[in-house]
Structure formats: C-alpha cells, structure tokens
C-alpha cells in the first residue's frame, strides 16, 4: 500500500516536471520564433523552392515546390540505403569468409581491410574518396573506358541509359513466370526428396528455362531495350546514365565502411560454431559444402543477424553524411531549406519521422529473420 502511494507520487512528480519543462520550452520557442520572424507549420512545403538538385530519381525542376524537393531527398536516402545494404552485405560476407579462410595471406589481407576501415571515421573515408580518389580521375576528354559504352572521369561514371520498349515487358513477365515455376519446382523437389531420397535437378532445369529469355529477346520484333550511350561533345559527355562523383563517393564510402563491420559479424558467427560439430559432420561423411549449408551457416546466422541489424540501421543513418559532400539526400535538401526559411523545427521533425520509420521497417524485417533462426535451448 505504502509503496503504491510512493509510486503514485513519483509518477505525478515526473509527469508534472516533464509537463512544466515542455510548457516552458514551448513558450520560449514561440517567443523566439516571433522575434526572428520565422513561420511555423508546413505551409512552406507547397511554396516553389527554386532549389537546384541535379541528382534525382524522378524528374525534377528547380521550379518544383519545397515539398517535392524534400521528397526527392527522401527518395535519394531510400535509394542509397537500399543499394548500400545489398552491396555491403555481399562484400561483407565475402570479406568475412576471407577472414576465416585457412589461407594466411587472404585472411591477413581481409584483416588489414577491416582494421583500417573500422578505425577511421566514415566522414574521413568519404572526403578521401571524393576529394582524392574521384578528383584524380582523368578529364572527360581522356576518360577511362573499361567496357564498351562505360566512361569513367572526374565528372562521373557514364553508363548507357536504358530505354525500355514494349518487348521489355514481355521479357519481364516471362522472367517472373520462370521464377515462379522454379519456386514451385523446388517445393516439389523437396517433397520428392522426402519420399524417395532424390530431388529434382532444379538447378539444371532453371538454367535451361532461363535460356529461354535470350531466345525470346531475339524473336521479338524490334529492340527490347535501347541504350542511349554517352557521347563526348566538346568538353563533356552528353546523354547516357550518369553516376555523379557525389553519389559514387557516398556509395563507395558507405559500402566499404559497413562491409567491414558486417565482415566482423560474419566472422564471429562462423567462429561461434564449435569445431567439434564440423568434425562430427565430417566423420559422418559430409562434404564441406553440405557441412557449411546445414551445420555452420544456420548456427552462424543466429549470432550474425542481430549484430548485422545494427549495421544496417547504421548504414541508413550514415547516409546522412551525404550533406558533407553535396549529394542531395534528405539531410542535404532539408539543410538547404532550413538555410532559406529557418523552419528548422519542422524539417528536423520530418527527418526524425522518416529515419525512425525506416529503422522500424529494417528492424522488423531483421527481427523476423532472427526469429526464424533461433535455437531451442534447455
């Protein structure tokens, strides 16, 4: 009884204190905003912005509103995060496996990579990539051309710009159909294996089916995809798909940095599997690939997935460093807007809302994955 009463008092006290502080802050803010002639509310979102953004996923003109400009920034943040997570995972897993390789040279090189990238601030890596590496690329007139239609110079990476025609949709539909067939086939194969011990040769069937696609592409009248190549006109390239240095630097820095952390997670996951189990699998006659698939990976993932969730959300948050090298992500564009109309509270509120939502989604997906690989303990 006594404890409940004390609890109640404490609760009331805390609520009261928070309410009082909030009210004071609110009053101060009102006063300050008025004194500095700063508007409130989101009306500015429908005002024409005049912000020049040259790297957007959707068509954009400076005549578009602040709201649309901010939306471009949000799309860029999502785009960079999505690509970054995929690329960092692929590279991180490779380097993590290299770290635990029995090859001394490979494992040491991977260790050097990880230790350097983890102990240097990401912003520094970004600056270095942007200012030193990308700036030292040649002038457009003497671009590097590693593949046909690909040009690399200090204005960016120029790729052929795909233009889709009608045939593309047929090919896409066929691809989806084939993937679904393969999915169903793998289910059937599993059932067959349960009953007879031998599954279907799904991989081989898959390869044959996928060969249909180029055949289809050849049969269809007209081109499926048309490439607009970048052409050197004067001092610059025109046309084509451009990956600007800001985007490239951000992607390279983010991916290499996050991959180092993911590599460490992969390494600790694999090393957490007791060698005795690998020996038991060997003693039963299992090939190394079977041991990896059925014994090591399921247990390694248990350890790696929670840690990697953190790294994914970090990557999303780190994409905000775009503001330091001029890539127009959400923070970049928002910062510019603040610079123009001082409506910091609204913009910062929007930032927080978007980042928290992205983090919630990523965490939810990873938690679902994590739950699926849990082990029953005593």
């Amino acid at each position, binding site marked *: 009884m006594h404890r409940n009463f004390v609890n109640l008092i404490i609760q009331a006290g805390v609520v009261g204190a928070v309410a009082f502080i909030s009210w004071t802050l609110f009053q101060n803010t009102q006063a300050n905003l008025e004194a500095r002639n700063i508007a409130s509310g989101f009306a500015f979102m429908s005002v024409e912005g005049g912000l020049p953004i040259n790297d957007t996923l959707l068509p954009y003109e400076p005549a578009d509103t602040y709201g649309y400009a901010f939306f471009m920034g949000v799309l860029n943040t999502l785009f960079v995060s999505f690509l970054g997570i995929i690329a960092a995972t692929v590279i991180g897993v490779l380097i993590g496996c290299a770290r635990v390789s029995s090859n001394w040279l490979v494992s040491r090189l991977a260790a050097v990579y990880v230790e350097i990238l983890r102990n240097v601030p990401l912003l520094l890596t970004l600056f270095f990539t942007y200012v030193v590496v990308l700036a030292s690329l040649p002038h457009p007139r003497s671009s590097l051309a590693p593949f046909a239609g690909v040009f690399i110079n200090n204005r960016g990476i120029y790729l052929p710009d795909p233009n889709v025609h009608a045939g593309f949709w047929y090919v896409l539909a066929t691809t989806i159909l084939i993937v679904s067939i393969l999915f169903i086939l793998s289910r059937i194969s599993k059932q067959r*294996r*349960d*009953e*007879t*011990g*031998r599954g279907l040769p799904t991989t081989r069937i898959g390869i044959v089916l996928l060969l249909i696609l180029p055949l289809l592409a050849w049969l269809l009248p007209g081109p499926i995809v048309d490439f607009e190549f970048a052409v050197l006109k004067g001092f610059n390239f025109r046309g084509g798909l451009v990956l600007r240095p800001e985007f490239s630097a951000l992607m390279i820095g983010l991916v290499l940095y996050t991959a180092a952390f993911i590599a460490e997670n992969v390494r600790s996951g694999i090393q957490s599997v*007791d060698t*005795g*189990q690998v*020996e*038991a*699998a*060997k*003693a*039963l*006659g*299992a*090939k190394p690939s*079977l041991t990896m698939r*059925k*014994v090591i990976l*399921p*247990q390694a993932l*248990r350890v790696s997935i929670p840690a990697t969730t953190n790294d994914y959300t970090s990557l999303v948050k780190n994409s905000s460093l775009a503001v330091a090298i001029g890539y127009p992500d959400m923070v970049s564009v928002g910062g510019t807007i603040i610079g123009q109309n001082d409506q910091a509270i609204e913009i910062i509120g929007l930032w927080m809302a978007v980042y928290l939502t992205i983090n919630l989604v990523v965490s939810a997906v990873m938690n679902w994955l994590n739950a699926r690989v849990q*082990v*029953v*303990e*005593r």
Partner: protein
Amino acid sequence: MSHESPSPGKTIERNTSRGGTIVELSNVDKWFGSFHVLKKINLTVQRGERIVICGPSGSGKSTLVRCINGLEEYQRGTITVDGTPLTSDPREIERVRQNVGMVFQSFNLFPHMSVLHNLTFAPIWIRKMPKREAEELAMHFLTRVRIADQASKFPGQLSGGQQQRVAIARTLCMNPEILLFDEPTSALDPEMIKEVLDVMVELAREEITMLCVTHEMGFARTVADRIIFMDGGEIVEENDPESFFTRPVYDRTQEFLKQII
C-alpha cells in the same frame, strides 16, 4: 575409476562370421608440427574385433583413432580401411567415413536440429534416403539406445548421458562396419556413465568392429578381444584382457596399471 560392468567377469561371446583384416596401420608416423606424436605404429584389426586402447594422457591414443577416419593426417606409413588406402584424396576419405562411425568425448550433436533430425541428417543428405525411410531407421536406433521418447527434443534439453546415446544412435544410422570411440564417457557425470557403457556393451554383441579409447577398465575386461597400451606415441603392449591385466609384460604397463586399478 572403473565401474561395474553389466556381466562381471565373463567376456561376451560373439559370432564372427566374416574374418579378414578390416583396418591396417603400417609403420605410421605422425607429427604435429615438429612434435613426433605417433611413432612407427603397426596395428592390424580383424573384422568384428573389439579393441580397447588405453594409456596415459598425451600418449597419442586419440590421435591414432582420429587417423583412422581421416580427421587427422599422417606423414609416413600407410593406413588401409576396409581395403581403401587413406590418402589425401577427399573423395576416398569421404567414402571411408561413411563406413566408419565416430563417437566423440563431447558428443558433438547439432544443437539446431532435433534429436530425430540429428539422426536423419546423414542418411537423407549423404545416402540420399527418402525422408520417411530415414525417420523409421532413426526411430529404430533411438529405440535401441532407449531414448525414443526424446525424438522431438533438442540436444540442449537432454542430459549428457542422453546426448551421448543419441550420438551413438546417430553413427549407427549410417550402418558403419567400424565404430570408433574417443573417450566416450570422459565428459559424463559418474551416474550417467553406466547407461552409455550399457549401450556400448550391447553393441559389442553385434558384428561391428569397435576401437575404443577409454579409461573404463571394467568395460575393457568385459568386452575387449584385445587391449592395446600406448605410451609416448607408440604401442607398448597388446594382449587379451586376461593376460593384460594379470601378466603385463613391460614395466611401463605395470606402472600404468598400478595407477588405474
């Protein structure tokens, strides 16, 4: 140290219908780095024989047994298992391992798989057995080691003795002709040793060839056809149990026996 064996005194009689050498080690030398751990090992094991290997720690007994299924490499000499010479060819080694079962000191069950799944893992993925058949096989052996009611549990939910019995059943599912035991009871609490030894004694009645590294001398006296004493990386003495325990030949053997009996 030693525990009550199920049928004290008598060696178990068995039927060895097929004779012939099943494992042969000839002048085998092994080094760990520059440490000479196995010295000129010569050993011939007949089909159906039950051999116990004993000796002080560090004598190389585990290493010897682990060489027989290729878990350890050797640098000199030859090892032949059921007609197949053990070289560094991975496919040969895998084929040998499918016919040689191993029970480890630390059980080494797969913690992320149920007991049943632990047993069906190898038959399904290595022998390509249909799932239903593999599960029937697994239940058969689980019943034999008297643990059928735990089939859907996970290793983390079982006691040490139960886990080791599951491990034994797991090796039996691959129908091996040779069973290797590497100190199977050394990691068990005393009250669980008997249940595992009982299972091993029952196994000894079959036609299966057994090589067992153990300190359980009661078990050795009951079950073994031959006892091999190792020290310092070499085989010092081998004899039938009766002669080994009552008339050891070498001083080393006598010293060892004094310590354990």
